[in-house]
């Protein structure tokens, strides 16, 4: 499996994500700079890391979502390619329109950086298949703008189609319906605020994020 890790000016979780994709998912990570207009040949997964792309200017993820590589990512997703966006990556995915809704300033106004308990709401995706249904896991968050918002119709669709991947058990940011992560309609695009790459190795003291990378290894094996 070959995984593209997209790098913007201000990305800061790109190497951690590449490590987790490499060591836990067994992928060959390839760093891809935002100015590239095309993904390298043979990419099986696109991963958009956390950070502060373009200094969060205008809106978090807004400028990144209009960078040359963004069009290639939208095309890749349109062909059914799996895309994982974590934290700033989730914000980029909503700004591109690959995922519905938006992420606004935390309701408490503070940057929240701590371990948060989550429930895995669906195992029907290439990202969550290795978790037990309804599993409760702890994964760290670190964000200022993780407050998920969507209109009532969008929320009803997400709920009805089982597209809420993770929910906070103790909502840290005011997110609508305690949403921590959502899937696209074809379940091949996942955006989530918590950082599974920061909970993927024994030396990190928490491996609750590792099943996400193992699930990707399983789902994309042999491609």
């Amino acid at each position, binding site marked *: 499996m070959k995984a593209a890790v997209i790098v913007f000016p201000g990305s800061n979780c790109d190497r951690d994500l590449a490590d987790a994709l490499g060591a836990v998912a067994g992928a060959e990570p390839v760093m891809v700079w935002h100015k590239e207009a095309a993904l390298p040949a043979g990419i099986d997964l696109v991963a958009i890391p956390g950070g502060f792309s373009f200094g969060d200017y*205008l*809106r978090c993820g*807004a400028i990144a979502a*209009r960078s040359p590589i963004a069009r290639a990512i939208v095309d890749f997703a349109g062909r059914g390619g799996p895309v994982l966006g974590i934290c700033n990556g989730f914000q980029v995915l*909503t*700004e591109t329109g690959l995922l*519905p*809704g*938006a992420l*606004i*300033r*935390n*309701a*408490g*106004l503070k940057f929240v950086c701590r371990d948060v308990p989550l429930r895995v709401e669906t195992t029907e995706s290439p990202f969550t298949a290795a978790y037990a249904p309804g599993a409760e896991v702890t994964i760290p968050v670190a964000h200022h703008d993780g*407050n998920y*918002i*969507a*209109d009532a119709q969008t929320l009803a669709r997400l709920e009805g189609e089982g597209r809420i991947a993770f929910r906070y058990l103790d909502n840290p940011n*005011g997110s609508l319906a305690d949403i921590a992560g959502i899937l696209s309609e074809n379940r091949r695009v996942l955006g989530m605020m918590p950082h599974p790459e920061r909970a993927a190795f024994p030396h990190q003291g928490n491996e609750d994020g590792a099943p996400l990378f193992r699930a990707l290894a399983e789902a994309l094996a042999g491609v």
Partner: protein
Amino acid sequence: MPHPFKARIEIMLKPGVLDPQGEAVRHALATLGFTGIDKVRQGKLIEIDMEAENADAAAARAREMCEKLLANTVIEDYRIEISGR
């Protein structure tokens, strides 16, 4: 022949969207003793100097910029004012 125009673009969160920053400003104003404040909403103001054939063309371009980048219409409304400069 193109003429110089200035677009003033005001971007605000939609009425139903919680504005925690505006709310924090309201609290701070109350702390300073300002009474009778019901609500504070905080937005953005973007000024763009551009060349266009006429004011309508300038407005159309500013609208396209809002739809494609400047505003996130999932959560924000925008208002455009065009003037000569």
